[in-house]
């Protein structure tokens, strides 16, 4: 197996995630896109871990999963709160910024 194939897969997922962050309006969907990005990073880490034959990558992968979990938790809590206040979670409606 090639190293680059995994890295490329990571890259693709990452870019899809970026696209999602930019394009999506719904906060939950944005969070999902972020999850995509995080996973792509994980794939890279593990690929390198295998390549260098060290366990550091695994460690970081685990950390990232944990952080992701925390992030989703807080993120969704925020979404709930916003929804409660505004009956909507469209990110643009959140924008205070009317030029």
């Amino acid at each position, binding site marked *: *197996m*090639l*190293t*680059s*194939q995994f890295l*490329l*897969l990571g*890259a*693709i*997922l*990452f*870019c*899809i995630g*970026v*696209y*999602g962050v*930019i*394009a*999506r*309006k*719904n906060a*939950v*969907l944005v969070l*999902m*896109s972020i*999850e*995509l990005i995080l*996973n792509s990073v*994980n*794939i890279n880490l*593990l*690929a390198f*871990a*295998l*390549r260098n*034959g060290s*366990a*550091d*990558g*695994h*460690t970081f*992968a*685990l*950390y990232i*999963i*944990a*952080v*992701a*979990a*925390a992030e*989703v*938790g*807080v993120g*969704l*809590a*925020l*979404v*709930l*709160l916003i929804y409660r206040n505004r009956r909507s979670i469209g*990110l643009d409606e959140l924008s205070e910024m009317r030029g």
Partner: protein
Amino acid sequence: MFAAELLVAQNIGFAVIALMMIVAALRVVTTSNVVHAALWLVVVLGGAAAQYILLAAEFVAVTQVLVYIGAVMVLFLFGTMLTRARIGAERDLNNAYWRLGIPVAGALFAAMAIALVSSFGDEQLPAEPEVTSVQQISDQIFGPYLLPFWALSFVLLAAIIGAIVLARKD
């Protein structure tokens, strides 16, 4: 010999899973139904777990399945339920300027692809990867990476409290 076949099998497996993941990921960011998006995300995450196994990271894979598909997805679904009265297709999940995402993501991918290919080319991964044991990982975590571990624990703690505080009704 056998290794070679295994490699072939692995390559095929990788290709299939990767394809599946990519399609699923695309659906996640394009579907017009939040719940579907969540379910597609499940596919992606599962695929990722499979990839981890291919990368000889069983433990991470298991954690991935447990944490993500077990916890995070449930969270997502709950979030969707709680914030959206009705489940089903709806329009304007996208911004007016969603098209902009395409060139940006494309450029980003181009950059990374060039960099990766030029730097790794067709470098092979070790054919007989020895599986990283949980013990190694734990040595790592509680050895050199103890400080980040603590930091992480605090982050989780803060997140839990934060989530509770934020989500409380009053």
